[in-house]
């Protein structure tokens, strides 16, 4: 398998602090309402506990990306060296087809530029040997960079509950599921 970078989402560690989303915003200064990384609380039917659990999600840099396949002007390409899916905004004509087609809502419409945009995995930082800003900023190490060609997948899942199953696209993200909350009782009661 060729090198394929992706995000590890550790829902067991995530505390839903949104620092990753803010770090992304701080790095790229997206327009209001344009969100490349979002933190989703798991709904009660998925995680029915008083404790809460979260998925921090951005573009999944799929093996077979819908955005790239549907773009009529070839504004997306997949890097040979690490499988990252990059959007070239200069080529974009703002047709919105990628936004409609990505099941994960990764491409977003920039109302000022009238073009789509999405998480780039901070590929410029990757090229410099640095980690993406969201990964760097997480105070509990709940997001990581993984290479699927060498990853030990023990304890990880690709399609976690609450995450749309899309085998054709094959999203390059892996989840560590949140543990069930422990009930601590005092003895002798």
């Amino acid at each position, binding site marked *: 398998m060729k090198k394929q970078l992706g995000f590890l989402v550790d829902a067991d560690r995530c505390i839903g602090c949104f620092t990753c989303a803010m770090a992304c915003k701080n790095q790229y200064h997206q327009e209001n309402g344009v969100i490349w990384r979002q933190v989703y609380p798991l709904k009660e*039917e998925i995680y029915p506990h008083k404790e809460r659990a979260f998925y921090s*999600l951005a573009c999944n840099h799929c093996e077979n990306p819908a955005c790239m396949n549907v773009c*009529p*002007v*070839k504004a997306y390409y997949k890097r040979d060296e690490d499988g990252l899916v990059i959007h070239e905004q200069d080529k974009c004509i703002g047709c919105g087809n990628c936004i409609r*087609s990505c099941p*994960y809502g990764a491409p977003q419409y920039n109302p000022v530029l009238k*073009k789509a945009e999405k998480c780039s995995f901070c590929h410029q930082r990757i090229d410099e040997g640095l980690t993406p800003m969201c990964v760097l900023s997480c105070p509990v190490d709940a997001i990581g960079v993984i290479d699927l060609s060498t990853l030990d997948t023990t304890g990880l899942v690709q399609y976690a*509950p609450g995450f749309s199953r899309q085998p*054709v696209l094959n999203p390059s993200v892996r989840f560590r599921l949140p543990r069930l909350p422990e009930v601590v009782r005092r003895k002798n009661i």
Partner: protein
Amino acid sequence: MNSYEMPLVLFTVLGQSAIGLVAVSAFRQVAGPDAEPGRIRLEWLAAGLVLVAGLIASVFHLGHPAGMVRALSNLGTAWLSREALTIGIFLVLLAAGLILMREKTSPMLAVATAAAGLLVIVTMGMTYSPPSFPAINNALPFVFFCLTALLLGSSAGQVFAVKASQPMLTRILTVTLVVALVIYLLVPCIWLSGGEIMKQTAGQWLASPLYWGRIVIGLVLPLALVKRLKGTPAWLWVLILAGELMGRAVFFAGTVHTAANMGGMY
């Protein structure tokens, strides 16, 4: 609710109307009683104008309309590029049919233009059935678009058809109205037995006044009028067009995207 995507509503409905007009006209010329030549020219001219109006509407959907020509760049994988190509072919054949028309269009050219129109509907159906909308990630958009073309083609075709052809067009329209009514009433019920996003889509459609407006104004009322008047009045296409526009608005605004339920059931 998503955006109503009015440019796309107008583009798809008007484009499919033009295809329906040409297809019904070709069918009449090949299989039906002879039509008056002057009216066929007028019919094709109307189809061309409606298609151009739809194309103009589609431009307003783009953030950068100047890049429209580059939409043909990704014919290898993008159905939107293929849609643009097939619409171009349809437009060229339509224009050729108009220019070369003597008393009638040549049957070969009429059938070829109608076939190109069918190809447009196939590519449109593929473009608007992405994996992000589970409720319509199937053949439904193609079926919806075929019904639009047939409904508007057979109702607006009455304006241009000679008397001898009108009973045939009324039969086509009646059957299409009944089939469309059954499909549009059944589809949300089937979605209710599907996954979470399909259920949510059914909920959005059934709760939308536009959906019921489309059923009543665009399907039930025309069906009742055709039955009562024992024919198709020349103005009936206005009601059907209104119904189709409402239905297409629901198609774009009421169909739920998978990303809307992230962290929930699928």
